[in-house]
Protein backbone atom coordinates (compact mmCIF):
# COMPACT_ATOMS: atom_id res chain seq x y z
CA UNK A 1 0.00 0.00 0.00
CA UNK A 2 2.85 2.38 0.83
CA UNK A 3 4.27 1.81 -2.65
CA UNK A 4 0.89 2.69 -4.18
CA UNK A 5 0.72 5.85 -2.09
CA UNK A 6 4.25 6.82 -3.16
CA UNK A 7 3.46 6.35 -6.84
CA UNK A 8 0.12 8.12 -6.45
CA UNK A 9 2.04 11.03 -4.92
CA UNK A 10 4.58 10.85 -7.77
CA UNK A 11 1.80 11.14 -10.37
CA UNK A 12 -0.11 13.83 -8.46
CA UNK A 13 2.92 16.11 -8.06
CA UNK A 14 3.67 15.97 -11.72
CA UNK A 15 0.07 16.55 -12.75
CA UNK A 16 -0.30 19.55 -10.46
CA UNK A 17 3.06 20.97 -11.57
CA UNK A 18 2.15 20.82 -15.22
CA UNK A 19 -1.50 21.77 -14.91
CA UNK A 20 -2.72 25.05 -16.34
CA UNK A 21 -1.67 27.76 -13.88
CA UNK A 22 -4.86 29.77 -14.14
CA UNK A 23 -7.08 26.74 -13.65
CA UNK A 24 -5.13 25.87 -10.52
CA UNK A 25 -5.43 29.43 -9.22
CA UNK A 26 -9.18 29.39 -9.90
CA UNK A 27 -9.72 26.14 -8.05
CA UNK A 28 -7.65 27.29 -5.07
CA UNK A 29 -9.61 30.55 -5.04
CA UNK A 30 -12.84 28.59 -4.80
CA UNK A 31 -11.36 26.67 -1.87
CA UNK A 32 -10.26 29.89 -0.16
CA UNK A 33 -13.69 31.44 -0.56
CA UNK A 34 -15.39 28.29 0.70
CA UNK A 35 -13.14 28.22 3.72
CA UNK A 36 -13.78 31.89 4.45
CA UNK A 37 -17.50 31.25 4.05
CA UNK A 38 -17.26 28.45 6.61
CA UNK A 39 -15.36 30.57 9.10
CA UNK A 40 -16.44 34.13 8.51
CA UNK A 41 -20.21 33.73 8.18
CA UNK A 42 -20.62 31.88 11.44
CA UNK A 43 -17.84 33.99 12.96
CA UNK A 44 -19.65 37.25 12.17
CA UNK A 45 -23.01 35.90 13.33
CA UNK A 46 -21.53 34.75 16.61
CA UNK A 47 -19.44 37.90 16.75
CA UNK A 48 -22.59 40.00 16.54
CA UNK A 49 -23.60 38.62 19.91
CA UNK A 50 -20.05 38.26 21.13
CA UNK A 51 -19.68 41.97 20.54
CA UNK A 52 -22.63 42.50 22.83
CA UNK A 53 -21.20 40.09 25.37
CA UNK A 54 -17.80 41.71 25.22
CA UNK A 55 -19.33 45.16 25.55
CA UNK A 56 -21.32 44.01 28.57
CA UNK A 57 -18.08 42.85 30.13
CA UNK A 58 -15.98 45.85 29.17
CA UNK A 59 -18.52 48.54 29.97
CA UNK A 60 -20.58 47.12 32.79
CA UNK A 61 -19.78 43.89 34.63
CA UNK A 62 -16.01 43.81 34.32
CA UNK A 63 -14.53 40.35 34.75
CA UNK A 64 -16.57 39.81 37.89
CA UNK A 65 -19.61 41.40 39.44
CA UNK A 66 -20.87 41.30 42.99
CA UNK A 67 -24.53 42.25 43.31
CA UNK A 68 -27.27 42.11 45.89
CA UNK A 69 -28.97 38.87 46.79
CA UNK A 70 -32.56 38.31 45.74
CA UNK A 71 -35.06 39.89 48.13
CA UNK A 72 -32.36 42.19 49.50
CA UNK A 73 -32.32 45.92 48.87
CA UNK A 74 -28.55 46.18 48.73
CA UNK A 75 -25.30 44.27 49.32
CA UNK A 76 -24.96 43.85 53.07
CA UNK A 77 -21.56 44.57 54.61
CA UNK A 78 -20.42 46.33 51.43
CA UNK A 79 -17.54 48.04 53.23
CA UNK A 80 -16.13 44.75 54.56
CA UNK A 81 -16.50 43.16 51.13
CA UNK A 82 -14.62 46.04 49.55
CA UNK A 83 -11.86 45.67 52.13
CA UNK A 84 -11.65 41.97 51.27
CA UNK A 85 -11.46 42.44 47.52
CA UNK A 86 -8.93 45.25 47.88
CA UNK A 87 -6.64 42.80 49.63
CA UNK A 88 -6.91 40.14 46.92
CA UNK A 89 -4.01 40.08 44.44
CA UNK A 90 -6.30 39.06 41.57
CA UNK A 91 -8.13 42.38 41.71
CA UNK A 92 -6.82 45.06 39.38
CA UNK A 93 -9.62 47.58 39.87
CA UNK A 94 -13.20 47.91 41.03
CA UNK A 95 -16.15 50.28 40.94
CA UNK A 96 -19.01 50.54 43.40
CA UNK A 97 -22.52 51.45 42.21
CA UNK A 98 -25.77 52.42 43.82
CA UNK A 99 -29.09 52.02 42.02
CA UNK A 100 -32.65 52.96 42.76
CA UNK A 101 -35.77 53.18 40.68
CA UNK A 102 -37.13 56.66 40.18
CA UNK A 103 -38.91 59.07 37.91
CA UNK A 104 -37.34 61.62 35.60
CA UNK A 105 -39.33 64.67 34.53
CA UNK A 106 -38.70 67.44 32.03
CA UNK A 107 -40.74 70.33 30.69
CA UNK A 108 -42.33 70.78 34.15
CA UNK A 109 -41.72 74.52 34.19
CA UNK A 110 -43.14 75.22 30.78
CA UNK A 111 -46.16 72.94 30.83
CA UNK A 112 -49.50 74.44 29.98
CA UNK A 113 -53.03 73.10 29.92
CA UNK A 114 -52.48 71.81 26.42
CA UNK A 115 -49.04 70.40 26.92
CA UNK A 116 -48.10 67.67 29.33
CA UNK A 117 -44.95 67.56 31.25
CA UNK A 118 -42.90 64.62 30.18
CA UNK A 119 -41.86 62.00 32.66
CA UNK A 120 -40.48 58.52 32.55
CA UNK A 121 -39.42 55.82 34.95
CA UNK A 122 -35.71 55.43 35.16
CA UNK A 123 -32.99 53.71 37.12
CA UNK A 124 -31.01 56.36 38.93
CA UNK A 125 -27.42 55.31 39.59
CA UNK A 126 -24.84 56.73 41.93
CA UNK A 127 -21.21 56.24 40.85
CA UNK A 128 -17.73 57.30 41.79
CA UNK A 129 -16.95 59.05 38.49
CA UNK A 130 -13.23 58.39 38.64
CA UNK A 131 -13.44 54.71 39.65
CA UNK A 132 -16.23 54.04 37.17
CA UNK A 133 -14.38 55.64 34.32
CA UNK A 134 -11.18 53.78 35.20
CA UNK A 135 -13.00 50.47 35.13
CA UNK A 136 -15.39 50.91 32.19
CA UNK A 137 -14.23 53.99 30.27
CA UNK A 138 -17.78 55.29 30.59
CA UNK A 139 -16.65 58.80 29.66
CA UNK A 140 -16.01 57.52 26.12
CA UNK A 141 -19.78 57.32 25.68
CA UNK A 142 -20.45 60.99 26.25
CA UNK A 143 -22.04 62.24 23.02
CA UNK A 144 -23.13 65.63 24.28
CA UNK A 145 -21.77 67.73 27.12
CA UNK A 146 -19.10 66.39 29.44
CA UNK A 147 -18.46 63.73 32.01
CA UNK A 148 -19.13 64.00 35.76
CA UNK A 149 -16.46 65.12 38.22
CA UNK A 150 -16.40 63.90 41.84
CA UNK A 151 -17.71 67.26 43.10
CA UNK A 152 -20.49 67.63 40.54
CA UNK A 153 -23.46 67.97 42.83
CA UNK A 154 -26.88 68.50 41.29
CA UNK A 155 -25.55 67.37 37.96
CA UNK A 156 -26.46 64.21 36.08
CA UNK A 157 -25.58 62.23 32.99
CA UNK A 158 -28.65 61.06 31.13
CA UNK A 159 -28.65 57.86 29.10
CA UNK A 160 -29.75 58.28 25.49
CA UNK A 161 -32.37 55.56 25.94
CA UNK A 162 -34.66 58.10 27.61
CA UNK A 163 -34.34 60.81 25.00
CA UNK A 164 -36.56 61.33 21.98
CA UNK A 165 -33.55 62.55 19.99
CA UNK A 166 -31.89 59.13 20.26
CA UNK A 167 -34.86 56.86 20.91
CA UNK A 168 -37.82 58.21 18.91
CA UNK A 169 -40.33 55.67 20.16
CA UNK A 170 -43.92 56.37 21.03
CA UNK A 171 -45.60 53.45 22.67
CA UNK A 172 -47.92 52.91 25.60
CA UNK A 173 -46.00 52.78 28.85
CA UNK A 174 -42.89 54.41 27.44
CA UNK A 175 -42.15 58.10 27.06
CA UNK A 176 -39.12 59.54 25.35
CA UNK A 177 -38.11 62.85 26.84
CA UNK A 178 -37.77 65.83 24.55
CA UNK A 179 -35.69 69.01 24.83
CA UNK A 180 -33.05 67.43 26.99
CA UNK A 181 -29.57 68.68 26.36
CA UNK A 182 -26.48 69.68 28.35
CA UNK A 183 -27.49 72.58 30.52
CA UNK A 184 -31.22 71.80 30.57
CA UNK A 185 -33.03 70.98 33.79
CA UNK A 186 -34.36 67.61 34.80
CA UNK A 187 -36.31 66.71 37.93
CA UNK A 188 -35.63 63.35 39.55
CA UNK A 189 -37.72 61.67 42.18
CA UNK A 190 -36.01 58.83 43.97
CA UNK A 191 -36.89 57.23 47.30
CA UNK A 192 -39.61 59.83 47.73
CA UNK A 193 -37.20 62.72 47.35
CA UNK A 194 -37.63 65.09 44.43
CA UNK A 195 -34.84 67.30 43.31
CA UNK A 196 -33.89 69.31 40.31
CA UNK A 197 -30.65 68.59 38.47
CA UNK A 198 -28.78 70.03 35.56
CA UNK A 199 -27.97 67.74 32.66
CA UNK A 200 -24.19 67.74 32.35
CA UNK A 201 -23.91 65.18 29.59
CA UNK A 202 -25.71 62.62 27.47
CA UNK A 203 -24.43 59.03 27.34
CA UNK A 204 -24.92 56.78 24.34
CA UNK A 205 -23.70 53.19 24.42
CA UNK A 206 -24.79 49.85 23.05
CA UNK A 207 -24.85 48.52 26.59
CA UNK A 208 -28.27 49.09 28.11
CA UNK A 209 -26.82 49.28 31.60
CA UNK A 210 -25.12 52.49 30.49
CA UNK A 211 -27.64 54.01 28.10
CA UNK A 212 -30.70 53.19 30.15
CA UNK A 213 -29.66 54.89 33.38
CA UNK A 214 -29.31 58.37 34.81
CA UNK A 215 -26.02 58.83 36.67
CA UNK A 216 -25.10 61.13 39.50
CA UNK A 217 -22.20 61.33 41.92
CA UNK A 218 -22.43 58.56 44.52
CA UNK A 219 -22.06 60.84 47.53
CA UNK A 220 -25.14 62.87 46.55
CA UNK A 221 -27.04 59.71 45.67
CA UNK A 222 -26.43 58.22 49.10
CA UNK A 223 -27.58 61.46 50.74
CA UNK A 224 -30.78 61.48 48.74
CA UNK A 225 -31.73 57.84 49.35
CA UNK A 226 -30.36 57.78 52.88
CA UNK A 227 -27.75 55.09 52.22
CA UNK A 228 -25.35 56.30 54.89
CA UNK A 229 -24.12 52.79 55.57
CA UNK A 230 -22.54 52.86 52.09
CA UNK A 231 -24.11 49.50 51.23
CA UNK A 232 -24.01 49.28 47.46
CA UNK A 233 -26.10 47.58 44.77
CA UNK A 234 -23.25 46.19 42.75
CA UNK A 235 -19.48 46.13 42.63
CA UNK A 236 -17.84 45.57 39.27
CA UNK A 237 -14.31 44.16 39.35
CA UNK A 238 -11.56 43.91 36.79
CA UNK A 239 -9.07 41.14 37.44
CA UNK A 240 -5.38 41.21 36.62
CA UNK A 241 -4.35 39.67 33.30
CA UNK A 242 -4.43 35.90 33.45
CA UNK A 243 -6.56 35.65 36.57
CA UNK A 244 -9.44 33.21 36.38
CA UNK A 245 -12.86 34.64 37.23
CA UNK A 246 -14.00 31.16 38.27
CA UNK A 247 -11.15 30.74 40.73
CA UNK A 248 -11.75 34.26 42.00
CA UNK A 249 -15.35 33.31 42.64
CA UNK A 250 -14.23 30.28 44.64
CA UNK A 251 -11.90 32.48 46.68
CA UNK A 252 -14.73 34.87 47.49
CA UNK A 253 -16.93 31.96 48.52
CA UNK A 254 -14.23 30.69 50.81
CA UNK A 255 -14.15 34.18 52.37
CA UNK A 256 -17.87 33.80 53.04
CA UNK A 257 -18.92 36.68 50.83
CA UNK A 258 -21.59 34.58 49.12
CA UNK A 259 -23.66 34.88 52.33
CA UNK A 260 -24.12 38.60 51.75
CA UNK A 261 -23.97 39.03 48.00
CA UNK A 262 -24.47 37.30 44.69
CA UNK A 263 -21.16 36.40 43.08
CA UNK A 264 -21.04 36.16 39.29
CA UNK A 265 -18.34 35.92 36.68
CA UNK A 266 -19.07 37.96 33.58
CA UNK A 267 -20.28 34.77 31.93
CA UNK A 268 -22.65 33.99 34.79
CA UNK A 269 -24.00 37.51 34.50
CA UNK A 270 -24.76 37.23 30.79
CA UNK A 271 -28.47 37.37 30.12
CA UNK A 272 -29.73 33.93 29.09
CA UNK A 273 -31.20 35.38 25.95
CA UNK A 274 -27.72 36.39 24.81
CA UNK A 275 -26.47 32.87 25.35
CA UNK A 276 -29.45 31.46 23.47
CA UNK A 277 -29.00 33.85 20.57
CA UNK A 278 -25.28 33.04 20.44
CA UNK A 279 -26.04 29.33 20.19
CA UNK A 280 -28.72 29.91 17.56
CA UNK A 281 -26.46 32.10 15.46
CA UNK A 282 -23.65 29.56 15.67
CA UNK A 283 -26.06 26.94 14.35
CA UNK A 284 -27.23 29.27 11.61
CA UNK A 285 -23.66 30.07 10.67
CA UNK A 286 -22.83 26.39 10.43
CA UNK A 287 -25.90 25.77 8.27
CA UNK A 288 -24.91 28.54 5.88
CA UNK A 289 -21.33 27.30 5.90
CA UNK A 290 -22.56 23.83 4.99
CA UNK A 291 -24.09 25.21 1.83
CA UNK A 292 -20.74 26.69 0.89
CA UNK A 293 -19.09 23.37 1.67
CA UNK A 294 -21.55 21.58 -0.60
CA UNK A 295 -20.79 24.04 -3.39
CA UNK A 296 -17.05 23.56 -2.98
CA UNK A 297 -17.46 19.79 -2.96
CA UNK A 298 -19.45 19.91 -6.17
CA UNK A 299 -16.82 22.18 -7.70
CA UNK A 300 -14.02 19.77 -6.85
CA UNK A 301 -16.13 16.86 -8.10
CA UNK A 302 -16.62 18.59 -11.43
CA UNK A 303 -12.97 19.63 -11.70
CA UNK A 304 -11.67 16.14 -10.96
CA UNK A 305 -14.33 14.53 -13.13
CA UNK A 306 -13.44 16.71 -16.11
CA UNK A 307 -9.75 16.17 -15.47
CA UNK A 308 -10.19 12.41 -15.27
CA UNK A 309 -12.53 12.15 -18.23
CA UNK A 310 -10.22 14.17 -20.47
CA UNK A 311 -7.38 11.96 -19.31
CA UNK A 312 -9.41 8.79 -19.70
CA UNK A 313 -7.11 7.55 -22.41
CA UNK A 314 -4.02 8.04 -20.25
CA UNK A 315 -5.73 6.38 -17.33
CA UNK A 316 -6.43 3.45 -19.63
CA UNK A 317 -2.81 3.40 -20.78
CA UNK A 318 -1.55 3.39 -17.22
CA UNK A 319 -3.82 0.50 -16.35
CA UNK A 320 -2.80 -1.21 -19.59
CA UNK A 321 0.89 -1.12 -18.78
CA UNK A 322 0.19 -2.49 -15.31
CA UNK A 323 -0.35 0.53 -13.06
CA UNK A 324 -2.88 -0.40 -10.37
CA UNK A 325 -6.14 1.56 -10.60
CA UNK A 326 -5.84 2.41 -6.91
CA UNK A 327 -2.60 4.29 -7.62
CA UNK A 328 -4.45 6.48 -10.08
CA UNK A 329 -7.29 7.06 -7.59
CA UNK A 330 -4.74 7.97 -4.92
CA UNK A 331 -3.11 10.47 -7.27
CA UNK A 332 -6.44 12.25 -7.68
CA UNK A 333 -6.98 12.21 -3.92
CA UNK A 334 -3.60 13.90 -3.50
CA UNK A 335 -4.55 16.50 -6.08
CA UNK A 336 -7.79 17.22 -4.22
CA UNK A 337 -5.85 17.47 -0.97
CA UNK A 338 -3.49 19.94 -2.58
CA UNK A 339 -6.36 22.23 -3.52
CA UNK A 340 -7.96 21.92 -0.08
CA UNK A 341 -4.68 22.47 1.78
CA UNK A 342 -3.80 25.53 -0.27
CA UNK A 343 -7.29 26.93 0.13
CA UNK A 344 -7.36 26.30 3.88
CA UNK A 345 -3.83 27.59 4.40
CA UNK A 346 -4.49 30.82 2.58
CA UNK A 347 -7.88 31.09 4.29
CA UNK A 348 -6.40 30.64 7.77
CA UNK A 349 -3.77 33.27 7.02
CA UNK A 350 -6.42 35.72 5.82
CA UNK A 351 -8.62 35.06 8.86
CA UNK A 352 -6.02 35.44 11.57
CA UNK A 353 -3.66 37.94 10.02
CA UNK A 354 -6.17 40.20 8.32
CA UNK A 355 -9.82 39.70 9.17
CA UNK A 356 -9.75 39.16 12.93
CA UNK A 357 -7.46 42.15 13.61
CA UNK A 358 -9.43 44.23 11.12
CA UNK A 359 -12.79 43.57 12.75
CA UNK A 360 -11.29 44.05 16.17
CA UNK A 361 -10.07 47.49 15.17
CA UNK A 362 -13.14 48.28 13.06
CA UNK A 363 -16.12 46.40 14.47
CA UNK A 364 -19.30 46.34 12.44
CA UNK A 365 -21.62 49.00 13.77
CA UNK A 366 -24.83 47.12 14.53
CA UNK A 367 -27.49 49.02 16.46
CA UNK A 368 -27.23 46.81 19.50
CA UNK A 369 -23.59 45.75 19.42
CA UNK A 370 -20.21 46.21 17.82
CA UNK A 371 -19.91 43.10 15.72
CA UNK A 372 -16.53 41.40 15.73
CA UNK A 373 -15.32 38.26 13.97
CA UNK A 374 -15.09 35.34 16.35
CA UNK A 375 -12.60 32.76 15.15
CA UNK A 376 -10.98 30.33 17.55
CA UNK A 377 -7.94 28.36 16.48
CA UNK A 378 -9.54 25.02 17.25
CA UNK A 379 -12.79 25.92 15.51
CA UNK A 380 -10.98 27.20 12.44
CA UNK A 381 -8.79 24.11 12.16
CA UNK A 382 -11.87 21.94 12.59
CA UNK A 383 -13.44 23.69 9.62
CA UNK A 384 -10.24 23.23 7.61
CA UNK A 385 -10.46 19.53 8.43
CA UNK A 386 -14.06 19.46 7.28
CA UNK A 387 -13.16 21.13 4.00
CA UNK A 388 -10.33 18.65 3.52
CA UNK A 389 -12.62 15.69 4.13
CA UNK A 390 -15.33 16.99 1.82
CA UNK A 391 -12.73 17.68 -0.88
CA UNK A 392 -11.17 14.24 -0.53
CA UNK A 393 -14.50 12.54 -1.01
CA UNK A 394 -15.45 14.86 -3.85
CA UNK A 395 -12.16 14.08 -5.58
CA UNK A 396 -12.19 10.35 -4.96
CA UNK A 397 -15.65 9.60 -6.32
CA UNK A 398 -15.19 10.85 -9.90
CA UNK A 399 -11.66 9.41 -10.04
CA UNK A 400 -13.00 6.00 -9.08
CA UNK A 401 -15.84 6.29 -11.59
CA UNK A 402 -13.39 6.88 -14.43
CA UNK A 403 -10.71 4.44 -13.29
CA UNK A 404 -13.24 1.62 -13.13
CA UNK A 405 -14.12 2.01 -16.81
CA UNK A 406 -12.96 -0.72 -19.17
CA UNK A 407 -9.22 -0.39 -19.81
CA UNK A 408 -9.28 -1.07 -23.56
CA UNK A 409 -12.28 1.18 -24.15
CA UNK A 410 -10.38 3.95 -22.38
CA UNK A 411 -7.21 3.40 -24.43
CA UNK A 412 -9.12 3.33 -27.71
CA UNK A 413 -11.41 6.19 -26.75
CA UNK A 414 -14.55 4.02 -27.07
Amino acid at each position, binding site marked *: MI*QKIKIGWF*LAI*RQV*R*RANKWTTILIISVMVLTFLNLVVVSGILVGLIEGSVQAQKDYYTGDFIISKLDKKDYIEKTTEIIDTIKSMPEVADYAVRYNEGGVAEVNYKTKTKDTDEESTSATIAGIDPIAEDRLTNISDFIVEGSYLLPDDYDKVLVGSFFLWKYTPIESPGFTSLRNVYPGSKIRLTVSGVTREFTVKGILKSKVDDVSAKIFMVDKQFRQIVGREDKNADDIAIRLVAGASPTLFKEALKRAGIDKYARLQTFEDAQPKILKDIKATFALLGNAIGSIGLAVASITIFIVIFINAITRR*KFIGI*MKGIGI*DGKVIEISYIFQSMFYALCGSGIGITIVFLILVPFFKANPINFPFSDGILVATLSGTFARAGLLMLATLIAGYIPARMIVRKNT*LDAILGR
Partner: protein
Amino acid sequence: MIKTKNLIKTFIDGEKETHVLKGIDFEAKEGEFIAIMGRSGAGKSTLLYQISLLDEPTSGEIIIDGVDVHNMSVDQKTSFRLNRLGYVFQDYALLPDLTALENVALPLLMQGKNKVDAYNEATLSLEKVNLGHRINNLPSQLSGGEQQRVSISRAIAHKPKILFADEPTANLDNASSATVMEIFKDLNNQGQTIIMVTHEEMYAKIADRLIRLDDGRIVT
Protein backbone atom coordinates in the same frame (compact mmCIF):
# COMPACT_ATOMS: atom_id res chain seq x y z
CA MET B 1 5.20 -18.92 -24.71
CA ILE B 2 1.68 -18.03 -25.84
CA LYS B 3 -0.98 -20.50 -26.84
CA THR B 4 -4.60 -19.89 -27.67
CA LYS B 5 -7.27 -22.51 -28.24
CA ASN B 6 -10.48 -21.79 -30.09
CA LEU B 7 -10.34 -18.13 -29.16
CA ILE B 8 -13.63 -16.38 -29.89
CA LYS B 9 -14.47 -12.71 -29.48
CA THR B 10 -17.94 -11.40 -30.19
CA PHE B 11 -19.04 -7.79 -29.70
CA ILE B 12 -22.67 -7.26 -28.77
CA ASP B 13 -24.23 -3.86 -29.45
CA GLY B 14 -27.86 -4.02 -28.46
CA GLU B 15 -29.30 -6.82 -30.60
CA LYS B 16 -26.43 -6.72 -33.07
CA GLU B 17 -23.65 -9.30 -32.68
CA THR B 18 -20.32 -8.88 -34.41
CA HIS B 19 -18.14 -11.99 -34.47
CA VAL B 20 -14.63 -10.62 -34.77
CA LEU B 21 -12.58 -13.72 -33.83
CA LYS B 22 -14.12 -17.00 -34.85
CA GLY B 23 -11.99 -19.63 -33.19
CA ILE B 24 -8.29 -18.76 -33.27
CA ASP B 25 -5.69 -21.41 -32.51
CA PHE B 26 -2.45 -19.53 -32.21
CA GLU B 27 0.97 -20.27 -30.82
CA ALA B 28 4.12 -18.21 -30.32
CA LYS B 29 7.37 -19.69 -29.09
CA GLU B 30 9.91 -17.94 -26.91
CA GLY B 31 12.20 -15.66 -28.89
CA GLU B 32 9.92 -15.55 -31.95
CA PHE B 33 9.11 -12.36 -33.82
CA ILE B 34 5.58 -12.74 -35.18
CA ALA B 35 3.83 -10.27 -37.43
CA ILE B 36 0.04 -10.34 -37.68
CA MET B 37 -1.42 -8.93 -40.86
CA GLY B 38 -4.80 -8.70 -42.53
CA ARG B 39 -7.13 -6.21 -44.13
CA SER B 40 -9.06 -3.74 -42.03
CA GLY B 41 -11.65 -5.47 -39.88
CA ALA B 42 -9.96 -8.85 -40.06
CA GLY B 43 -9.47 -8.95 -36.29
CA LYS B 44 -5.71 -8.38 -36.00
CA SER B 45 -5.81 -5.77 -33.23
CA THR B 46 -8.63 -7.64 -31.49
CA LEU B 47 -6.47 -10.77 -31.41
CA LEU B 48 -3.56 -8.73 -30.03
CA TYR B 49 -5.73 -7.27 -27.28
CA GLN B 50 -6.95 -10.72 -26.23
CA ILE B 51 -3.52 -12.32 -26.01
CA SER B 52 -2.03 -9.26 -24.31
CA LEU B 53 -4.75 -9.34 -21.62
CA LEU B 54 -6.08 -5.90 -22.47
CA ASP B 55 -9.44 -7.41 -23.32
CA GLU B 56 -11.55 -10.38 -22.26
CA PRO B 57 -12.37 -13.07 -24.90
CA THR B 58 -15.90 -14.30 -25.25
CA SER B 59 -14.63 -17.87 -25.00
CA GLY B 60 -11.52 -19.93 -25.57
CA GLU B 61 -8.25 -20.52 -23.78
CA ILE B 62 -5.19 -18.33 -23.48
CA ILE B 63 -2.06 -19.69 -21.88
CA ILE B 64 0.87 -17.32 -21.45
CA ASP B 65 4.19 -18.49 -20.15
CA GLY B 66 2.49 -21.64 -18.83
CA VAL B 67 -0.23 -19.71 -17.00
CA ASP B 68 -3.91 -20.10 -17.90
CA VAL B 69 -5.05 -16.52 -17.71
CA HIS B 70 -8.74 -17.24 -18.13
CA ASN B 71 -9.63 -17.25 -14.44
CA MET B 72 -7.34 -14.43 -13.37
CA SER B 73 -8.89 -11.53 -11.48
CA VAL B 74 -8.56 -7.97 -12.76
CA ASP B 75 -5.82 -7.24 -10.24
CA GLN B 76 -3.95 -10.42 -11.17
CA LYS B 77 -4.09 -9.50 -14.84
CA THR B 78 -2.84 -6.00 -14.06
CA SER B 79 0.06 -7.47 -12.15
CA PHE B 80 0.74 -9.98 -14.94
CA ARG B 81 0.83 -7.20 -17.52
CA LEU B 82 3.13 -5.13 -15.32
CA ASN B 83 5.66 -7.88 -14.70
CA ARG B 84 5.63 -10.04 -17.81
CA LEU B 85 4.27 -8.08 -20.75
CA GLY B 86 5.28 -4.91 -22.59
CA TYR B 87 3.22 -2.71 -24.90
CA VAL B 88 3.95 -0.38 -27.75
CA PHE B 89 0.87 1.45 -28.96
CA GLN B 90 0.18 3.03 -32.28
CA ASP B 91 0.01 6.55 -30.91
CA TYR B 92 2.94 6.22 -28.49
CA ALA B 93 0.68 6.43 -25.40
CA LEU B 94 3.09 8.44 -23.29
CA LEU B 95 1.85 10.31 -20.21
CA PRO B 96 2.09 14.02 -21.08
CA ASP B 97 2.91 15.19 -17.54
CA LEU B 98 5.96 12.93 -17.20
CA THR B 99 9.35 13.32 -18.83
CA ALA B 100 10.75 10.57 -21.02
CA LEU B 101 12.68 9.24 -18.03
CA GLU B 102 9.63 9.32 -15.76
CA ASN B 103 7.44 7.61 -18.38
CA VAL B 104 9.93 4.76 -18.63
CA ALA B 105 10.52 4.57 -14.87
CA LEU B 106 6.82 4.44 -13.95
CA PRO B 107 6.29 0.70 -14.45
CA LEU B 108 9.58 0.02 -12.66
CA LEU B 109 8.39 2.06 -9.68
CA MET B 110 5.11 0.16 -9.77
CA GLN B 111 7.09 -3.07 -9.58
CA GLY B 112 8.48 -1.90 -6.25
CA LYS B 113 11.89 -0.60 -7.27
CA ASN B 114 13.17 2.40 -5.42
CA LYS B 115 13.43 5.68 -7.29
CA VAL B 116 17.21 5.57 -7.79
CA ASP B 117 17.21 2.04 -9.25
CA ALA B 118 14.13 2.74 -11.35
CA TYR B 119 15.65 5.89 -12.81
CA ASN B 120 18.98 4.13 -13.49
CA GLU B 121 17.29 1.28 -15.32
CA ALA B 122 15.08 3.72 -17.21
CA THR B 123 18.14 5.68 -18.30
CA LEU B 124 19.81 2.51 -19.59
CA SER B 125 16.67 1.56 -21.43
CA LEU B 126 16.46 4.99 -23.08
CA GLU B 127 20.11 4.75 -24.07
CA LYS B 128 19.36 1.45 -25.81
CA VAL B 129 17.01 3.35 -28.14
CA ASN B 130 19.52 6.23 -28.51
CA LEU B 131 17.56 8.70 -26.41
CA GLY B 132 19.95 9.09 -23.52
CA HIS B 133 20.24 12.80 -24.32
CA ARG B 134 16.46 13.40 -24.13
CA ILE B 135 15.60 11.89 -20.79
CA ASN B 136 14.35 15.15 -19.26
CA ASN B 137 12.14 16.14 -22.16
CA LEU B 138 8.38 15.99 -22.01
CA PRO B 139 6.58 14.08 -24.78
CA SER B 140 5.44 17.38 -26.26
CA GLN B 141 9.11 18.25 -26.77
CA LEU B 142 9.86 15.07 -28.71
CA SER B 143 9.25 14.15 -32.34
CA GLY B 144 6.90 11.30 -33.25
CA GLY B 145 9.78 8.94 -33.81
CA GLU B 146 11.38 9.89 -30.51
CA GLN B 147 8.11 9.42 -28.67
CA GLN B 148 7.70 5.96 -30.16
CA ARG B 149 11.23 5.09 -29.10
CA VAL B 150 10.42 6.24 -25.56
CA SER B 151 7.35 4.02 -25.75
CA ILE B 152 9.52 1.07 -26.78
CA SER B 153 11.96 1.90 -24.03
CA ARG B 154 9.13 1.86 -21.49
CA ALA B 155 7.87 -1.43 -22.86
CA ILE B 156 11.23 -3.19 -22.49
CA ALA B 157 12.67 -1.49 -19.39
CA HIS B 158 11.25 -4.13 -17.05
CA LYS B 159 12.45 -6.98 -19.35
CA PRO B 160 9.06 -8.41 -20.26
CA LYS B 161 8.60 -11.97 -21.48
CA ILE B 162 6.60 -10.75 -24.46
CA LEU B 163 6.51 -7.41 -26.23
CA PHE B 164 3.24 -6.53 -27.99
CA ALA B 165 3.20 -3.81 -30.62
CA ASP B 166 0.01 -2.53 -32.22
CA GLU B 167 0.88 -0.85 -35.55
CA PRO B 168 3.96 0.84 -34.08
CA THR B 169 4.92 2.59 -37.32
CA ALA B 170 1.42 3.76 -38.34
CA ASN B 171 2.01 7.37 -37.30
CA LEU B 172 5.65 7.63 -38.25
CA ASP B 173 7.50 8.75 -41.31
CA ASN B 174 9.62 6.27 -43.25
CA ALA B 175 12.86 7.15 -41.54
CA SER B 176 11.42 6.87 -38.03
CA SER B 177 9.58 3.69 -38.98
CA ALA B 178 12.81 2.15 -40.19
CA THR B 179 14.52 3.13 -36.93
CA VAL B 180 11.74 1.55 -34.88
CA MET B 181 11.89 -1.67 -36.88
CA GLU B 182 15.65 -1.81 -36.47
CA ILE B 183 15.16 -1.56 -32.72
CA PHE B 184 12.63 -4.38 -32.80
CA LYS B 185 15.01 -6.54 -34.84
CA ASP B 186 17.83 -5.87 -32.39
CA LEU B 187 15.62 -6.74 -29.45
CA ASN B 188 14.51 -9.93 -31.12
CA ASN B 189 18.13 -10.84 -31.85
CA GLN B 190 18.74 -10.50 -28.13
CA GLY B 191 15.96 -13.02 -27.45
CA GLN B 192 12.93 -10.77 -26.98
CA THR B 193 9.61 -12.37 -28.01
CA ILE B 194 7.69 -9.86 -30.12
CA ILE B 195 4.16 -10.00 -31.47
CA MET B 196 3.39 -7.12 -33.78
CA VAL B 197 0.30 -6.07 -35.71
CA THR B 198 1.14 -4.21 -38.89
CA HIS B 199 -0.29 -3.11 -42.22
CA GLU B 200 3.11 -2.78 -43.81
CA GLU B 201 4.35 -5.78 -45.80
CA MET B 202 7.96 -4.59 -45.77
CA TYR B 203 8.01 -4.45 -41.98
CA ALA B 204 6.21 -7.75 -41.66
CA LYS B 205 9.05 -9.36 -43.63
CA ILE B 206 11.46 -8.54 -40.80
CA ALA B 207 9.50 -10.91 -38.56
CA ASP B 208 10.28 -14.62 -38.24
CA ARG B 209 6.70 -15.60 -38.95
CA LEU B 210 3.73 -13.97 -40.58
CA ILE B 211 0.17 -14.75 -39.59
CA ARG B 212 -2.61 -13.53 -41.84
CA LEU B 213 -6.08 -13.05 -40.54
CA ASP B 214 -9.19 -12.76 -42.63
CA ASP B 215 -12.72 -12.53 -41.36
CA GLY B 216 -11.73 -13.54 -37.85
CA ARG B 217 -9.77 -16.64 -38.80
CA ILE B 218 -6.11 -17.41 -39.44
CA VAL B 219 -5.70 -18.05 -43.15
CA THR B 220 -1.89 -18.48 -43.23
